[in-house]
C-alpha cells in the first residue's frame, strides 16, 4: 500500500538495470519500500542490482528476465512480475530504453524498427497489460520515463527522441484512462544525466548526475504532478525551446 505521501511498499522496475531507476529505488527503500521486482534483459546485471538493494535493506528483491525486442514478452513479463511481488504492486517504474547511435540509425531500417520496438512498442504493450491489474487491485502508481529529447526532437538523436515522444504521448492518454480510478500515472522527463547510457557523450546544458536526478524524481513522485522534469528548471527551458524558430534551434549546443 502507498501511504499518504505516496511512498510505496512494493516497486516494480521495468528496465531494472537503469542507473536512474535504481537510484530512485534505493531512495524508496530508505522510506517504506520492502519489496522490489527488477525486470530487465541482462540477468547478471539484474542479480548484481538485486544484491545491492538487499544490502540496502529491501526485504524481498526478485528478478524477471525479458527482452524488449521480443514484443510478445510484454504481457508475460507483467504477469511474472506480479507473481514475484506476491500479487500486487504499488509503484511501477517504466525505464526501458536504449539511446542508439544516430549516425548509424540514419540509414538503418532494421535498427530504426528495433529501437522503436524497445523504446516505444514494448513499453506501450506492457502498460496495456498492466492496466487491468491496476484496476483490479484498486490502487497504484506508474511513472514512465520519457525524455526532454522527445519534447522537441533534434538532429543529434531524433530516432531516440521520437520514440520517447511517442511514449510520452501514449502515457498522457493512458494516465487519463486510469485517473477516475484513483491511479496516478506520471511522466518523467529527465534532461542529460551522466549514466552508462550517455558515457563518453558531449554533455548538454543543465546536465546532472544520477543522484541529483533521482532526488528530483523521488520528490516528484510524492506530488500529483503529471510531469516530473529533472532538473525542474527544464520545464521553463523547454516551454521556450518548443517555440524557437528552426534556424535557431538547429544552432543550439548539446
Amino acid at each position, binding site marked *: 500500500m502507498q*501511504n499518504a*505521501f505516496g*511512498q510505496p511498499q512494493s516497486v516494480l522496475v521495468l528496465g531494472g538495470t537503469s542507473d536512474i531507476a535504481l537510484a530512485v529505488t534505493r531512495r524508496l527503500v530508505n522510506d517504506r519500500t520492502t519489496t522490489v521486482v527488477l525486470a530487465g534483459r541482462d540477468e547478471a546485471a539484474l542479480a548484481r542490482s538485486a544484491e545491492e538493494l538487499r544490502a540496502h535493506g529491501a526485504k524481498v528483491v526478485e528478478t524477471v528476465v525479458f527482452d524488449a525486442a521480443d514484443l510478445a514478452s510484454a504481457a508475460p513479463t507483467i504477469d511474472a512480475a506480479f507473481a514475484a511481488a506476491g500479487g*500486487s504492486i504499488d509503484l511501477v517504474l517504466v525505464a526501458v530504453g536504449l539511446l542508439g547511435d544516430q549516425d548509424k540509425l540514419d540509414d538503418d531500417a532494421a535498427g530504426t524498427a528495433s529501437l522503436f520496438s524497445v523504446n516505444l512498442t514494448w513499453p506501450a504493450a506492457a502498460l496495456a497489460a498492466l492496466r487491468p491489474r491496476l484496476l483490479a487491485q*484498486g*490502487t497504484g502508481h506508474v511513472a514512465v520515463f520519457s525524455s526532454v529529447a522527445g519534447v522537441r526532437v533534434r538532429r543529434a538523436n531524433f530516432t531516440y527522441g521520437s520514440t520517447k515522444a511517442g511514449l510520452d504521448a501514449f502515457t498522457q492518454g493512458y494516465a487519463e484512462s486510469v485517473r477516475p480510478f*484513483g491511479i496516478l500515472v506520471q511522466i518523467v522527463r529527465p534532461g542529460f544525466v551522466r549514466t552508462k547510457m550517455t558515457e563518453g557523450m558531449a554533455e548538454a546544458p543543465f546536465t546532472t548526475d544520477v543522484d541529483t536526478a533521482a532526488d528530483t524524481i523521488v520528490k516528484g513522485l510524492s506530488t*500529483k504532478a503529471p510531469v516530473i522534469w529533472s532538473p525542474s528548471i527544464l520545464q521553463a527551458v523547454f516551454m521556450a525551446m518548443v517555440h524557437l524558430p528552426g534556424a535557431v534551434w538547429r544552432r543550439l549546443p548539446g
Partner: protein
Amino acid sequence: MTTGSQELLSGWGNTAPSTAFVRTPRSADEVVELLSSAKGPLIARGLGRSYGDAAQCAGGTVISNRSLWHLSAIDPSSGLVTCGAGVSIDELLAVALPAGFFVPVTPGTRQVTVGGAIAADIHGKNHHVEGSFMSHVTSMTIATPVGSVTVSAETDPPLFWATAGGMGLTGIVTEATIRLLPVETGYVSVDTERFENLDSIMEAMYTGDADYRYSVAWVDCMTSGARMGRGVLTRGDHAPLEALNAKQRATPLAAPSGAKLSVPFTAPPGLLNKLSISAFNELWFRKAPAKRDGEIQSVGTFFHPLDGVSHWNRMHGPKGFLQYQFAVPDAHGDVVTRAIEVLSSAKVPSFLAVLKRFGPGDPGPLSFPIEGWTLALDVPLGPPQLPKVLDQLDQMVAEAGGRLYLAKDSRVSAELLRAMYPSLDSLNEVRRLIDPNRVLASDLSRRLELD
C-alpha cells in the same frame, strides 16, 4: 441489500484513495452472509472520518454500516441504550439529550458511527476521568467470518478488547449497548484560561485537570522562543439547570443543531500556508479571554467546534492533509515540547494543536490511550521535508514508550507501529480464531503489515 457499486474512497484527509466494491447490508444477517461468502479482502466503513486509510480496501469490498440503523428506548434508571452500529453520535445525541442523557464519550465531531467509535476506541475531553468509548459499552454484537457473537468484557474479554480499537480487523460490529450519562441540561459550564507558553499550560493541566470532567488545550505550534506553544485551556462540566439563563432554561435539553456553513469545493492549493495559518492562530489567541470562569456554552460549541462547517477538510486543498496524534506516558511529557519544537523549527505549517491528558488505558491491544499526554495536530501535505520530520517524531514517540493513533495515521512504518503496540500479538491470536482465512483487511492493515 443493495447490489453495491465500485467507488473511489479516501479518508477524511483526502490522501491515498483506492477503489473498492461498496455494499450496504440492511441487517446483521446480511453482514454475516457477506462475510462468509467473501472471496477477497473486506472491511467496514462508517462516516469516513478516519483521517487515513482505515476504512478503505483497495480491490476488495467495503461494507457500509449506515443501514444498520435502529435505536432502542433509553432505560431511564440505568441509562442503557441499544443501537445499530450505523447510528452516528449526532443521531444518538439527538435522541438522548431531550431524554436527559448524554453520550458518555464524544470526539471532536459528532459525525462518527457507533461502529467506528468502537473500532477506534475513541476518546473525548473526559478521558482522564472516564476513559475511552469502550469503557461505556456494556455489550456488543460482532459479525465475524465464523458467525455472529454477542460479547461483553466479562463473557469474552479477548474478543471484546481486541475489537476495542481493533480498526475493524476482528469483525463488523452490528449492534452495541452503551451506558449513557444522565445530565440536567444540554449546556456546559466552561472555564477558559490563556497561557503564554506550553510549560505553563502543562503545569496547569497536570495539577488541575482532576477537578474537571472535560479538559482540552489548544496550542499554537507556530510560535517560538519564550512564547513557544502558547495556548488556551478550556475545562468544564455539564451545567446544572440553575446555571442557565431564562432563555436557555426554556429548552434546557435541546439537541445540538447541524452545520450552518459548508465548504462547497476543494480550496485552491496553497490557500492555507505558513502565513495564513500564523495569522489565523494569532487572531484565535487574541480572541480568547485571559481568564473567564463559568461561561455557559452549548454542546456544539464546546465539544464539536468543527461540526459547524461541513466538509471543512476541503479547506486544505487538493493535496489533502494529515493529522498527527500521539500519546506518551507522563514520565516523557517532554516529548510534547520537543515535538512542537521540531515542527516549528522545520517550518512545517500547522494549525492549532490539541493537547489533552489521558487517564489509564483499557486492555485493548490496539486501543490508543495510555496514561499521560496526547497531542494532535493537522498538517497540510506539501512541504517536502514533512515525511522525514514525521519519521523523526515517530522515533521520539516510540522511544518514549508512546504510540500513534491509528484512526489518524496514514504514514507510520510497519516496524515502528510494532514497537508502539507491544501486545499486537494478542490481537492476532483473536484474529486466527474468528478469521482463519484472513478475510478482514483494510488498506491500513496491509500498509502496516498487520496481516
